[in-house]
């Protein structure tokens, strides 16, 4: 009996020390722990596959019972949204193409130039404390830790663990998630310029408005710009002058009228609270931030995501005293609770790329 107790005690001490050593090594990103994890994953994957096949009918039944009404409602809502978006998509595609052409013309990087891998979401995190999902593509597809993950709506997270043919994605709502972002200030501005005797009036606003219909006369061109925050593009309705012939209307934006951008850091706050953007400069140049302005990735040589990937829109601005700057609550564009397919941008910042 004493010998048995002694053996058990030794086993406990040995296992505890092993665990402590593993925690220490893993927090230092030791390749040995990654190797162990990968080896266990390779061994365990077939067992998990069998269990998945056996238990799938139970899971499907459960999902059918618990989500039937939600699916009906969602389906109806999606039909409405599809109808609304069809028209907007055409205009957006044209704007995106134009933007990419301009960026390419100026030798600037674009999202279209970055290779991407499409993956299917095969599971959520087995624990309730972390906001992670599992996808069915891994190192064999060129995926590396840190790469940004998107869906059709925008950024959803980044890769945190990579196995040969599967990976874990930390969602943007995870408390450990953070990335540098840009906040685009689109406060109401009115610019008036005159070219060859024709007055051009440009009005831009951050809140969705119905297009204003003006009766054009010979001397005035009216351009109404309505910014749709979620879609992240600008739809323009232009009424051209009927006469006189041979005259051209050109709107020249002043440097002070261009959208001002300010950088900050977005951080997740768990699934029930919206992520927040901190470290926004409280400068006069930037002006006040209103709800509805878009948040996009900042990019840069050290950022894990390329610039201008849409994240969401500001839902609330919390003013803080002193020089702390405002705190922005962000409504994420992507629906994180119902992810099926995601796109991994095979993007690595210059500082992360290994020299050949």
């Amino acid at each position, binding site marked *: 009996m004493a010998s048995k*107790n002694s053996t*058990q*005690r030794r*086993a*406990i001490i040995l*296992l*505890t020390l*092993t*665990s*402590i*050593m*593993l*925690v*220490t*090594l*893993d*927090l230092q990103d030791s390749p040995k*722990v990654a190797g*162990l*994890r990968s080896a*266990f*994953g390779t061994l*365990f994957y077939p*067992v*998990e596959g*069998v*269990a*998945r096949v056996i*238990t799938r009918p*139970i*899971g499907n039944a*459960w*999902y059918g019972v*618990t989500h039937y009404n939600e699916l009906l409602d969602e389906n109806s809502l999606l039909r409405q949204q599809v109808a609304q978006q069809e028209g907007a998509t055409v205009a957006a595609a044209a704007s995106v193409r134009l933007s990419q052409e301009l960026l390419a013309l100026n030798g600037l990087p674009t999202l279209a130039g970055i290779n991407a891998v499409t993956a299917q979401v095969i*599971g*959520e*995190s*087995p*624990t*309730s*404390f*972390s906001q*992670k999902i599992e996808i069915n593509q891994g190192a064999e597809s060129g995926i590396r830790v840190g790469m940004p993950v998107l869906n059709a709506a925008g950024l959803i997270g980044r890769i*945190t*663990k990579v196995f040969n043919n599967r990976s*874990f994605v*930390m969602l943007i709502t*995870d*408390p*450990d998630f953070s990335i540098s972002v840009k906040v685009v200030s689109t406060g109401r501005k009115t610019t008036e310029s005159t070219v060859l005797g024709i007055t051009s009036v440009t009005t831009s606003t951050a809140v969705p408005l119905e297009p204003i219909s003006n009766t054009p006369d010979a001397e005035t061109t009216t351009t109404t710009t309505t910014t749709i925050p979620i879609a992240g593009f600008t739809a323009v309705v232009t009424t051209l002058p009927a006469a006189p012939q041979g005259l051209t209307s050109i709107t020249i934006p002043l440097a002070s009228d261009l959208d001002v951008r300010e950088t900050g850091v977005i951080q*997740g*706050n*768990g*699934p*029930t*609270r919206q992520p927040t953007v901190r470290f926004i400069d409280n400068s006069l140049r930037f002006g006040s931030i209103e709800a509805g302005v878009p948040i996009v990735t900042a990019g840069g040589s050290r950022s894990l995501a390329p610039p201008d990937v849409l994240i969401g829109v500001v839902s609330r601005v919390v003013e803080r005293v002193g020089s702390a700057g405002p705190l922005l609550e962000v409504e994420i564009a992507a629906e994180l609770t119902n992810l099926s397919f995601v796109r991994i941008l095979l993007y690595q910042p210059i500082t992360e790329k290994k020299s050949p």
Partner: protein
Amino acid sequence: MLLFVLALQTTLFKDLRPFGVAGQIILLFVICAGIQFGISIGAIVGLVAGLMFDFVVSTPAGLGSITLGVTGATAGLYLYFFPNPIWWLRLVSVAFASLIGEIYVLIAQAMVGLGVVIELRLLTIIAVVAAINVGLSPGFLIITRWTLSERKKDR
């Protein structure tokens, strides 16, 4: 058996999420081992199960092992306090140990610097995990008894 429970944890119980909370049957297995076989066996089963669990999730390896080890040992205290077990007291102990186990997870995560957000949802997580574990515990008590008894015979 642990491999089988782990496979169920990473497949079926990852998808069945009442109130958005994943059931923790690996935690239940450890608790049942502790409740029936005492502190030492509870700790050993917890350490081994946690080590296996750590290798399939993305939290730091070894963290789950320590957490489940301590939970198994805590569950083992049941035999120390109640040497002649009563069936309903076992269910209460399972619920209590599940609650403690989830709190240990949070403490461990905070200790290694992982982000822990204290919010009302934590109460929901703990309550749902405890409820699921209590519901499944009669079956798991039989499974753990059978598994660990078989091991005894092998020796």
